[in-house]
């Protein structure tokens, strides 16, 4: 299948050109996702019943400490969890289709074409002995797109252009590129099939601040251009504040809070969200940041009740007994905390 060289990157030409208004329907719905890693000492409950959804064109942030399960969610969405890890249960509906029901071959076709990943050390995931254009070609070829050398060169140039790189980068090897440029190449590969959903797992954590902003701008520009949704995973709350529409705060394999970003920073609901925001050093005030005392619980034997209670300044007796569930307590805002017990009106789905 060969497409005209001037409008190359179209996988589904039948798709309507007019995009539906932003934030109307859900691209992805995740229901009660459970992922365990089975070790000799028992099952590590890395993701423990997480539900969220993402709307068309939306930017969702997933924030948490190391070990909170955020990267496991990214891998689970692509069904790339390797043994000893396993997706135990749940549903992941991409445009209504449960990814867990697909055969492996079908899933392989979804990766890159529908869901693309920009991984944390993506710049180190480039093949050191292949030129940039060959790495971009591999993705297209794997998804059945055969192009003449000329059409391929045009498409590669167009992709590189869309991430702000010059045409001749196509002929370079990864070692000839800086970290920021390599990360852009990875973004170019990720968008090469116009995915519906981009998962960016700490895409800029290895980059300098100035380059971080440039790479982030590039990523968001191509995301808007494609009308794709993005899940941005990270632990930098500053970056989240600048970039995403909604934030999900992860703690010990569960979502502690999901709120629109402005509400979250104005009035965090979960005590953990509050501490996380307070732990940010600021340029305005000296000494205004503090660490969160204590450590996250072991995911091998999860404590009873709320996982955060040992570090929580508001812990009550109740918290040790009953596990809180994510509930809608304000419009668009969900929190998993007993402090909001009386306020909730309806349990979120």
């Amino acid at each position, binding site marked *: 299948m060969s497409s005209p060289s001037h409008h190359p990157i179209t996988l589904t030409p039948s798709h309507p050109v007019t995009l539906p208004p932003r934030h109307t329907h859900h691209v992805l719905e995740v229901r009660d996702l459970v992922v365990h890693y089975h070790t000799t000492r028992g099952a590590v409950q890395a993701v423990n019943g997480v539900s969220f959804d993402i709307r068309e064109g939306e930017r969702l942030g997933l924030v948490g400490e*190391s070990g909170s399960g955020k990267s496991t969610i990214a891998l689970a969405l692509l069904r790339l969890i390797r043994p000893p890890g396993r997706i135990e249960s749940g549903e992941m509906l991409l445009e209504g289709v449960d990814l867990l029901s697909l055969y492996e071959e079908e899933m392989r076709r979804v990766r890159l074409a529908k869901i693309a990943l920009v991984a944390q050390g993506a710049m180190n995931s480039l093949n050191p002995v292949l030129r940039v254009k060959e790495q971009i070609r591999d993705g297209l070829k794997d998804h059945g797109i055969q192009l003449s050398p000329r059409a391929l060169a045009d498409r590669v140039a167009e992709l590189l252009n869309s991430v702000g790189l010059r045409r001749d*980068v196509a002929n370079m090897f990864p070692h000839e590129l800086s970290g920021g440029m390599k990360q852009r190449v990875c973004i170019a590969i990720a968008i090469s099939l116009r995915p519906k959903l981009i998962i960016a797992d700490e895409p800029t954590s290895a980059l300098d601040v100035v380059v971080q902003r440039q790479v982030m701008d590039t990523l968001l520009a191509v995301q808007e251009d494609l009308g794709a949704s993005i899940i941005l995973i990270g632990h930098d709350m500053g970056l989240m*504040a600048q970039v995403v529409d909604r934030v999900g705060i992860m703690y010990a394999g569960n979502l502690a809070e999901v709120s629109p970003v402005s509400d979250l920073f104005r009035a965090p609901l979960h005590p953990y969200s509050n501490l996380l925001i307070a732990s940010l050093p600021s340029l305005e005030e000296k000494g205004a940041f503090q*660490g969160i005392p204590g450590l996250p619980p072991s995911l091998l034997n999860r404590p009873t009740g709320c996982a955060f209670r040992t570090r929580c300044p508001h812990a009550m007796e109740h918290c040790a007994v009953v596990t809180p569930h994510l509930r809608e307590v304000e419009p668009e805002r969900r929190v998993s905390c007993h402090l909001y017990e009386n306020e909730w009106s309806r349990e979120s789905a």
Partner: protein
Amino acid sequence: MTALLEARHVTKVFGGGRFAKAPGTVALDDFSFRVDAEPPTITAIVGESGSGKTTLARLLLGLAAPTSGEVLYRGQDVQRLSGDERRRFLRDVQVIFQDPYEVYNPFYKVDHVLETPIKKFRLAPSREKARQLMEETLNAVGLRPDETLGRHPHQLSGGQRQRIMVARALLLQPRLIIADEPVSMVDASLRATILESLRQLHLKFGISILYITHDLTTAYQISQNILVMYRGEVAEVGDVDLVVKQPRHPYTQLLVQSIPKADPNHPWHGHEIPVDPSAPVAAVTHGCKFADRCPYVMDISRQQRPPLFRTDERRAAACFLYKESPQLEGTDLEQVMAVPLVPGV
């Protein structure tokens, strides 16, 4: 007064050489800097990758030799210290590296990294005393000995491991700790704790700290003076409050603007002249190294290397925008560094 540790006109070039095809990379360019023994200070060295900050740390630690210039420890070249002097140097100047995962041998318990210096430098006369010393040191950095001693590295979090590194440095009662990106690999929620333990060492034990980082916010939080480096040279230097709150050098301004503020109502602003990121970095032989990225570039910046202009009492910037200000005399950056408060205040 002899400085504790001093870099004098240090240049470090990687690669190049007589048979090389390309000229070498200048990591540090005629750089002078010193840390006095008294009073103790916290100085931040800030720059992007490639600014030469880690090279500087390695030179100061004697792990690399400068191409030209010299690094002096109490007036003696660190590359040629006598046995006794070297032992003293190894105690006086301690380092904390970036990666709290790589510095441990996974086969040993974490006790090992604390026991080794105790044995090497005979810090304790007996096992009991050694144990006591280890416990005291761990307490000083906010760790509970019963939760850390006897464990293997993989049983501890990144933050705990990094604080054990701080404890190890403290054990030798150094005069100076060089901390090279000590928190860049730990979770944001733990950064504050580690930086606080470093600050406590400074306040309680009068240890000077050289905090090397790419993160202006944490530098602002813990240091008194700051040195902003760009491609091996000082772009701006001085009192941290002045440099961070009212940056003068266009590069510092760019850095400050690039920090994502944790406030959705404060959009990420700042406009850099869009530079083609894939354009090869031209070797700058004349003129300001920042000229290609600078929104205020002038003719003179292309022709001459800007010296440090003393824009304020406690700050200097290497930019011709401030050519009306007097030039910093000599190479002594100390002139613009704020004198710290007496420790314990």
